[in-house]
């Protein structure tokens, strides 16, 4: 852990100004990921810009029937917010599937988006890692990769994005609001996180001098037919091996809209328009769901220890779609899988 300076931002403009002024500075929100990384000497910020006092803690309704969630709303507050619980239970469920109550109390919405991979090598400065040290090599490809990605990988990096919340946000077509020296902009959720390609050191398309100010949810919440199904190595407090956010809109016996996002399988929450198209205008059935899962995983590629994930993801997709279609979402407290 290195010596660093600490400052507190007074408002969003001040935060942006400070981060733009010092390329080695970093924002700190809940600190639940950043402090760990600093202790492991992975993050070595010259300066921490504390943003926790910024007025970004509200959940507000938008003109088009959606919600705008401030970047500093804690994961706990968000999961238990009445509007989220009523209109976007998929998001509430995904948040509650993650981490522990104590961590969710600290974790912020913005920090959750920007948390970094849990790849073992990324955390250990004694080993090569392209994400941590570009060009040093990827230790996971020929090493311990049971947790690693099966979709969208590159020769440079096969890490996954660890968030649960983001999988739901991806399924819900959220938008990320950011502010930077050039002003404010919005980023579609699918464009927010990146694939590793040749620049695994960059997790997102947020610019280093930008701050996330809010996440916006469109009106459509899929509150009737959804589920968040997280498969992990113990029944709580573990990152997803595979997780599935499934959201359907049914008209009679026909799926008129389908969303499917997977966690634990890629460098970003993974969506696949073709697989969703394979669900639309179909009656919910095992056969339909199987087909969608086949399509979803058609390009899946494993690296040894994570070979099981392809099969597991397939079964998890089908089960999640069954849960969503039946209107019996996975409980996050009763650990029996429905």
């Amino acid at each position, binding site marked *: *852990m*290195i*010596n660093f300076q600490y400052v507190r931002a007074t408002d969003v403009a001040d935060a942006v100004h400070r981060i733009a002024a010092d390329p080695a500075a970093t924002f700190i929100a809940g600190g639940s990921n950043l402090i760990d990384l600093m*202790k492991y*000497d992975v993050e070595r910020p010259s300066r921490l810009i504390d943003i926790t006092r910024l007025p970004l803690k509200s959940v507000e309704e938008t003109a088009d029937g959606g919600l705008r969630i401030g970047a500093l709303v804690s994961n706990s507050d968000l999961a238990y917010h009445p509007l989220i619980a009523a209109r976007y239970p998929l998001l509430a469920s995904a948040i509650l599937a993650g981490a522990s109550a104590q961590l969710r109390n600290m974790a912020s919405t913005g920090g959750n988006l920007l948390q970094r991979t*849990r790849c*073992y*090598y990324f955390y*250990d400065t*004694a*080993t090569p890692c392209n994400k941590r040290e570009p060009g040093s090599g990827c*230790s996971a490809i*020929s*090493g*311990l990769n*049971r947790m690693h990605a099966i979709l969208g990988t590159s020769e440079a990096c096969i890490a996954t994005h660890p968030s649960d919340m983001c999988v739901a946000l991806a399924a819900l077509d959220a938008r990320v609001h950011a502010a930077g020296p050039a002003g404010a902009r919005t980023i579609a959720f699918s464009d927010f996180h990146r694939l590793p390609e040749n620049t695994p050191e960059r997790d997102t398309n947020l610019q280093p001098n930008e701050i996330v100010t809010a996440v916006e949810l469109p009106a459509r919440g899929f509150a009737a037919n959804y589920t968040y199904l997280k*498969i992990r*190595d*113990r*029944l*709580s*407090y*573990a990152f997803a*091996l595979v997780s599935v956010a499934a959201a359907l809109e049914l008209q009679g016996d026909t799926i008129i809209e389908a969303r499917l996002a997977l966690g634990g399988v890629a460098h970003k929450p993974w969506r696949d328009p073709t697989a969703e198209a394979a669900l639309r205008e179909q009656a919910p059935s095992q056969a339909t769901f199987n087909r969608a899962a086949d399509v979803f995983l058609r390009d899946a590629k494993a690296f040894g220890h994570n070979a*099981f994930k392809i*099969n*597991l993801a397939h*079964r*998890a997709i*089908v*089960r999640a779609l069954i849960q969503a279609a039946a209107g019996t979402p996975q409980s996050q407290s009763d*650990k*029996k*899988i*429905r």
Partner: protein
Amino acid sequence: MTNYIGTATSRIDGRAKVTGEAKYAGEFNITGLAHASVVASTIAKGRIARIDASAALSVEGVLDVLTHLNRPPMASADSAYDDDTAPEGSPFRPLYNDRIWFNFQPVALVVAEKPEIARFAAALVRVEYEEQAHVTDLHRQRDKAFALEPGKNHSAPPKPRGTAEQAFAAAAVRHRGEYYVPIEHHNPIELFASTVIFESDGKLTVYDKTQGVQNVQRYLCNVLGTEPEEVRVMSPFVGGAFGSGLRPQFQAVLAALAARALKRSVRLALTRQQMYGLSYRPAMIQQIELGASAGGTLDAIAHDAITVTSQYEDFHRQETGWSGLLYRCANATYAHRLARLDLETPCDMRAPSAATGVYALECAMDELAVALKLDPLELRLRYYSDRDQNTDRPYSSKSLRECYRQGSQAFGWDKRNPEPRSTRDGTELVGWGMASGVWEALQVPIAARIVLTANGHAEVSCATSDIGTGTYTIMAQVAAEMLGLPLDNVTVKLGDSTLPQSPVEGGSWIAASVSNGIATTAGAVREELLRLAKQMPNSALADATADEVTLADGMLVSKRDATCAVSIAEAMRHRGVDRIEQEKSTTFDDDGSHAHNTHSAVFAEVKVDEELGVIRVTRVVSAIAAGRILNTKTARSQIIGGVVWGIGMALHEETLIDHNFGRIMNANIAEYHVPVNADVYDIDVIFVDELDAIVNPLGIKGLGEIGIVGVAAAIANAIYHATGMRVRDLPITLDKLQR
């Protein structure tokens, strides 16, 4: 008179623990305390070529950077590094020379005014290595493993018996299986730490996280070359250790070296990651073969084990012997080989050798039951033995049959459908499995001191540790009962090397040893009181002998006639005595005629999602026979803890090593999985009555270890019953259940 032994007494140190008043090794403060931080090796094997500490030394607040080149003198002979629990070999010495034996080995120690500065500066120390090729993979090294030999290695397997080869050839049914247990780390919640107070006269007072203060005290004196009175080691509270604190660990040496170098008090607390360089339960490959007749006899057992050790010591325990001990069987052979890896030396971890050896045996027994189409419990009853089969001796007590009976009844075992995959609960397959457990009832020489004052208070002391098991409480219970005092009038002192002799706390031997030790000393107190009482005018006990009286409610009372009694306070006052102090050593004479063991029967229910493989252990019943139970509350906690750990062993625990780097990659408790609350459902603990008049005067057998033994096997067997899939490699993660 109040009985304390056998009651559900709450921990006498419970309040101190939950209020934070109880201090652990890293929490003792003194003005001028300096703080140290370890620089740990990033290679598995080789030599240190160069250490550049200049950047670290230039940080304001850094006092020194110790390496093998500039540390204070330390002993060179292997014997100086020996300790009560050291295996054969040449013990590890931190900062001794340029050799690197394992990843995370300490290579430098930064000492600074503040912990943050020390940690920052530690990251600035540049170490260059000459790397050598390493091996950390047991599977790669299994063919190079060498055999343990009876006579040469202290825990070599027992002698074979009968003619196993012929018996296998004649057996109607044979089962052979290979079972794997990975490296597991202890991960006590309290981080390993030592606070070394540099006293004005140069003596050292060391607050250390350890299971044996006197072991550490002797070790430090030998390593530092000091006289015994120059080092005092204390450890009043220990936040779990599970075997990792049996041997003196390197943080104590490093902190002491730094204190001597700087002539200042120094604290060193390891990080969680660095604790993965202390020690671990060795990985092991076990092969078991069982041969049985169709008619219900077990005719042959062969148990081979290959376990991990380091390049410099031969750590081993007897994994294989349990197989030949437990069941009636005329023929048995064993083999145990050690594989050297470039890792630190393994050490004991809860129920060392039994948690693992019995896991393999009890899974194999389940497989044999399947092959014989017999109920697994029925199989064990048919093979039941009232004699230790290895040594052909009777047991001082063995109530395993009663464990089977009470455990199976509480579980409802008779409703089990023997067919695998026969029971469903919605999308889940339900499975029931069982296993037996066995551990030794050990006892070791120990001393205890009692100081009784005329105001009716007693202080009982012994250098043993309380590693969280409840030793404080049972010591108070036994003393209160033996002295006839209210529990609140007894204070307990332990965890201080200046107190009466105690071995390390481990092996489940302390409860039996210290309790009998206190009873012996209390007997001496009683004798002394009787001597005083007799001197009173018209003493009611004038003719009584020591074994005719007891102490109860502040009185010395005749066992024959309760009206013949003398007040303790009056007897002492009469002679002008305000305190009676007695210290006695207790040894346990064992004529070798009986085997002493504790036993358990474990029944587990699992529910496994058929498609996804997600496993839930929904019910465990553990029936325990462990002699006299001193405190049903702390004892129950011990067993629950053992069961939870068994769930972890079955489903979660695994130290992940990248063999390319020879480095542990999940060295933290986010990625090293142990069960969380969600993984733990109902645990029912039954203590079976077991009177043992032979093992020791109080009939105590100890129960720290027995709770974990058999649990992983019961769960693995239940998973087979649920799914029809036999997974022999632990942990049973869901990927291993994919079809």
